[in-house]
Structures are given as structure tokens and as C-alpha cells.
């Protein structure tokens, strides 16, 4: 009988037959072979299904399921994790993978070693190369919370320095991810997840270029609203994102008390307030602040 895998790649797919083969091959070529892939397809097409079937015939580690109705990006990301966990309930580590980026064959080997070696680390992610249509650029900046024992310090660093859109494609410890609550129905759900997760442990940025990310478009809140939700956009998404994230944190850490036993409700309330302060400061000052994006859209 086959041993259950330690790692699960959850792929929320959305109609990229042009890049799917390349992505799947990059995953199937991992030097660390102890993994399974669960693909949940939010826009099933014959082309995608044919590609997946071809690779399923070569490798039994792939599971494919087409969604009966469109879930939207948040729903699909959430489902990739939840469905993956249903199929492989004993996994230790989880990673979301897109259907168009590329993972270096050593990606898993290196990141699993990091998480195995450092039990205090809840997420590890590598350096990346940005793949533009006609050129590539190496992003060598490092940003993590390694060695920071104070949750406030980690929270501050996660908010002020980390690029959530890259870090969310790291390798997560499953138990920490479950406590942090996967993907929520807010704008910038990746940032919200990482902020909450930072309270439960450290992030480690590995100085090796192991992920190649396709750059498709520029960030905008309108684009996010269209992509993240399947039908009606919730009204609360028109509230500034730091406030949306604050609400989620208060709900989780104060009302539900999900911080326990690591920290109590009072501490949770304090962390939520700190998040609001740090995030507001960042939003006001940072180059990619949401209000700049709103202004830019209005000017257009």
C-alpha cells in the first residue's frame, strides 16, 4: 500500500491550457517526490481536461475535479485546500499552485527541509523570477520574520515589508494554516491570511530563486473584486482593506478565540488593533497603497 503524501499542491485552475503542461511538468519534476496534486477547475474546458488526463496517465499523484458552478478565486482557493485535505487528510505541508507559473524542480526539496528543520516556521517561500512577456527579472530582495519571537514584531514586518502575492505561494504548515483560516471573503485575502498567520509563527524567505512567476497585469481593486467573487460582490469590499482585515481578526481572535492556546482573547484584541495601525500606516505611505489604485482608476 502506498504511503500517504506529506505535501499537497492545491491548484485552483482557471482556463490556462496554454501554460498548464509547463506548470504540471514543473511540479511533477520535483526532486522531493513525496507529494500529491489536487486540481480544482473553476472553468472546466475540454483542452484543460485533455492535458490533465494526459499527465494523470503518467502520474497517479494527480487528482482533478471540475467545479459544478463557478466559485470565484476566493472560493476556488478555499476549495483547493478543503478538498485537498478531504482527499489527503494526513498531509503536513500545503502549497497553492497556479495553473501558469513555474516551480523549480528543487522548490519542494528546499522548502520542506526549511520547515522540517525549523518547527517555529509556519511558512517558507523562495526568491522569485518575474516572467514578463518579453523579459525576465530576478527579484533578490529578502523579507521574512525568521528569528522574531515577538508576534507584534512579526505582524509589523509581515504588513510593512512582505509582498503577500508572492509569499502566499509558499509552503505552509497545514495546522497553522487551518488556525489562520485559509482564504476569507475580503479584498487582498492573501495579505489577510499572511497577517493572521504571522501571529502563529515565523516566515522564512529562502535565498534561492525557485519560483518563476508570470506577470499578467497590474494590480487594481476593481480587478480583484471581479476575480475574487463568483457573482455579487459583497458590500464590505468597498470598505478600506485594512478595516476589512481588522474585522476578520477581531472575529477570529476575540470572538472565536482561535489564537488559543498560543495567545488569549485580550492579546488577540491587541494584535487586531496593532494590525489596524500598521496596515493603515502602510496603506497611507506605501507605493502600492489601495487608495493610490482607487485614484488611478478614477483618473482613467
Amino acid at each position, binding site marked *: 500500500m502506498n504511503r500517504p503524501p506529506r505535501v499537497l499542491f492545491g491548484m485552483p485552475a482557471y482556463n490556462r491550457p496554454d501554460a498548464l*503542461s*509547463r506548470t504540471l*511538468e*514543473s511540479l*511533477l*519534476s520535483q*526532486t522531493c517526490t513525496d507529494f500529491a496534486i489536487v486540481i480544482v477547475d473553476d472553468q472546466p474546458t475540454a483542452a484543460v481536461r485533455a492535458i490533465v488526463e*494526459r*499527465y494523470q496517465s*503518467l*502520474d497517479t499523484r494527480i487528482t482533478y475535479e471540475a467545479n459544478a458552478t463557478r466559485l470565484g478565486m476566493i472560493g476556488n482557493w478555499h476549495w483547493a485546500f478543503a478538498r485537498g485535505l478531504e482527499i489527503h487528510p494526513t498531509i503536513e505541508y500545503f502549497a497553492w499552485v497556479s495553473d501558469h507559473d*513555474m516551480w*523549480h*524542480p*528543487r522548490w519542494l526539496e*528546499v522548502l520542506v527541509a526549511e520547515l522540517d528543520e525549523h518547527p517555529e516556521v509556519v511558512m517558507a517561500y*523562495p526568491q522569485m*523570477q*518575474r516572467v*514578463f*512577456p*518579453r*523579459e*525576465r*527579472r*530576478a527579484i533578490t530582495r529578502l523579507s521574512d520574520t525568521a528569528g522574531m519571537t515577538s508576534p507584534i514584531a512579526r505582524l509589523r514586518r509581515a504588513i510593512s515589508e512582505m509582498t503577500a502575492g508572492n509569499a502566499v505561494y509558499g509552503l505552509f504548515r497545514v495546522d497553522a494554516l487551518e488556525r489562520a483560516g485559509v482564504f476569507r471573503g475580503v479584498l487582498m485575502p492573501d495579505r489577510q491570511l499572511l497577517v493572521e498567520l504571522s501571529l502563529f509563527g515565523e516566515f522564512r524567505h529562502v535565498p*534561492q*530563486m*525557485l519560483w*518563476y512567476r508570470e*506577470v499578467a*497585469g*497590474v494590480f487594481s481593486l476593481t480587478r480583484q473584486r471581479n476575480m475574487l467573487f463568483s457573482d455579487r460582490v459583497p458590500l464590505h469590499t468597498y470598505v478600506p482593506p485594512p478595516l476589512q482585515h481588522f474585522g476578520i481578526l477581531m472575529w477570529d481572535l476575540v470572538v472565536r478565540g482561535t489564537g488559543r492556546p498560543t495567545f488569549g482573547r485580550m492579546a488577540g484584541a491587541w494584535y487586531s488593533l496593532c494590525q489596524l495601525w500598521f496596515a493603515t500606516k502602510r496603506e497611507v505611505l506605501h507605493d502600492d497603497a489601495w487608495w493610490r489604485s482607487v485614484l488611478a482608476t478614477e483618473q482613467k
Partner: protein
Amino acid sequence: MSTSKAERDRLRLQRREELVARRVELKAAKRQADDERAARKQEERARLESERLALDAIAEKAYEDYLVVREGVRRMRECEDRNGVAYTDHERRAIEGLAPLWTANAEMIAQLRRWCEPLSGVRAADYASESSELATRLKRELSMLRRQGAHDLFVQESRALGGFGFEKHGELYNEDTLLFCKTLVALHDGALVQPYRASDERRLVWEIGGGWGGFACQFKTLFPNVTYLITGLPDAFLVSAVYVQALFPDARCRLFTDMPPADLFQQWKEIDFIFVPESAATTMQPPRVDLALDLSTLCQMSVDRMRAHVRRAFDLRCRYWYSLFRPDASAAESAVCDVVNECYWPHPIPARRERWAPAVMGVEPEPRPDTEAAHLVGWRRVCA
């Protein structure tokens, strides 16, 4: 009055005594400085002399190695002629350029690096003046590489066998040195060399062509726990096989003609360098290949020969491919990329730069400078 005169005389006498004492002191200090300078000079002379003796000893041993290598290469040559390998014009020119090495004497081998021009195009004569345009460019590139953190990937040009170049902080470098360093940086940025540092596992690296052996030496210096396989023109082994043995006197080298082809990779983990002629490359059976390196060799071949090499690497389950395109090889770049693409997913590795112009979607990127090489890393395909 008389008191004041006596006082003045006393002061004058005192000043004179002080002056004399000061002069004596200065003379002693000067003598000491002279002695120290002489000692330093002597030390420097002794160092240079011992260096010269060491280089002479290397050259002497290199000539002995050369005589052995030449016999092996002669037999490889016969094997190549039998198999009728069709060389390109570029390769034929290289073979002609290396022809004097078939009858080399000890003096020629002592200056072997000066005979590498047919293989690399780098001429010792260009390094005579420190104020040339080349000197300025290389100095700038070296500084940039160091600023970008490539310290631990820089290996200077050895002075053995007539090594040449410009000197900075006592380190010798030339165009090849920097090109190899950039290659190592690209391999690092492609996340291919980290396992060679971190693991005790013996790996096998295959370089196609091998040039004059310069990159093999750099790689082996940084990552000693590898068996380095070179396949290519037998004539080039007259340089590379002799050069690597000169730089690694304790290295265990094996020529294709040393053993029957079936036994070539016997106890491969104990061998440091293996030299195989191109005609045997497509049938050789190494137990593993971890990385295939093409330092602008493929672009000098016909498409069929390119494809045979890439396919061989794929069939040997070699996980990674690397191709370097020298600045003057951009014409053949797309042909090589196409062939590599058949078996490996290609990933261009951007060269390190001081500053990037902001990337804007839909806007053409800046063209690559004429002096900049390009690097391509390939990941083995599952289905090819």
C-alpha cells in the same frame, strides 16, 4: 653681560647636542627602514623565486602529462576519423589553430595558456596594457560582479602555464575568467549549484566541448565533489586535459582510450576528470548526469549534432541543461534554444545588472548590450 653670553653659549651647545642626537636618531631610523626594505625585497625575491620554481615544476610535470595525453588523443583522433565526424568551419579553424600543439616542446607547454586562442578567442597580447578599453570594461564588470555578491563564485586565472590577464588586489583575471564567473552566477541564480555545496553526494557534470579546461577548473575549485566529464574535439584535449592536470596535480584523470568503452565509468566516483571524444558521446553510458553544460559549444555545431547532444542528456535523465551564448554567438542562439526546447523547458536567466529600467507591460525591454552574454537554463521535460 658675560652671564648672558655664557647662557647663550650654553643654549647653543645644547641645541647642537640636540641636533646631533636627532641626526643620529634619524640615521638609525633610516638604517632600520633600509634594512626592513631590504628584508622585504629579499622576502619578495624569495617568494617570487619559490613561485617561479613552483611554476617551473608545474610546467615540467605538465610536459610529462602532455606526452601521455598526446598519445591518447592521437588514438581518439583516429577513432574520430574512422567515424567520420563532420566538423563545421569554425571547428576546423580551431583544429588548425591547435595543430602546432601536436609537436609541442616543453617551452610551448610551459606557456600553454598562450595557445588557447583558437578555443576561446581570448589573446594574451590584449592584456599588455592596463589602460586599454578592454581593461576598463573588465575592471568595471569585475567590480559590478563583486558588488552584486559574486565573491564566492570568483576564481582567479591561475598563473600556471602562462596564465595572463589584468591584476586587481593581487588577483589575475581576463575575459574568460569573468565569463566563467558570470556562468557560475547564472547557475547560482538558476538554483542549480546549491546542492553541490550542501550535499556530500558525488555528482557527475558533463561539459560539452570543454574549451581549454578553464571552466572545468573553476567548477572543480568551487565544487570539488564532482566527477567532471568533458566530451568534444580530441585536439582540444591537448590543452584541456593537460591544463586541468596542471592545476589539480592530485586529480585522477581518465581518457577515453585508457579503458574499453564499457568500463569507462567504472568507479567513476573516484575519478575527477574524464575525457571522451564527441563520436563516443552519444553512446557513452555514465551512471548518472546531474548537469549538462554547453559554454557556447553547441552553437558551433550543425543542428543534427546539437540535437544528438541534447537528446543524449535527456536520455541519460540529466535533470538540468545550461547553455551560454557568448556576445558574438547571438546568431545561433535561437537555433540552440529551439533544440534545447525539444527536451528541456527553457528558462533564460537574466544577467545581473546594477539597475533595471522599470518594467512596463507592453513596452519592449531594453536590448541586450553587445558585450553581454546570455544564459539559458533548461529543466528536463517529463514528456519530450
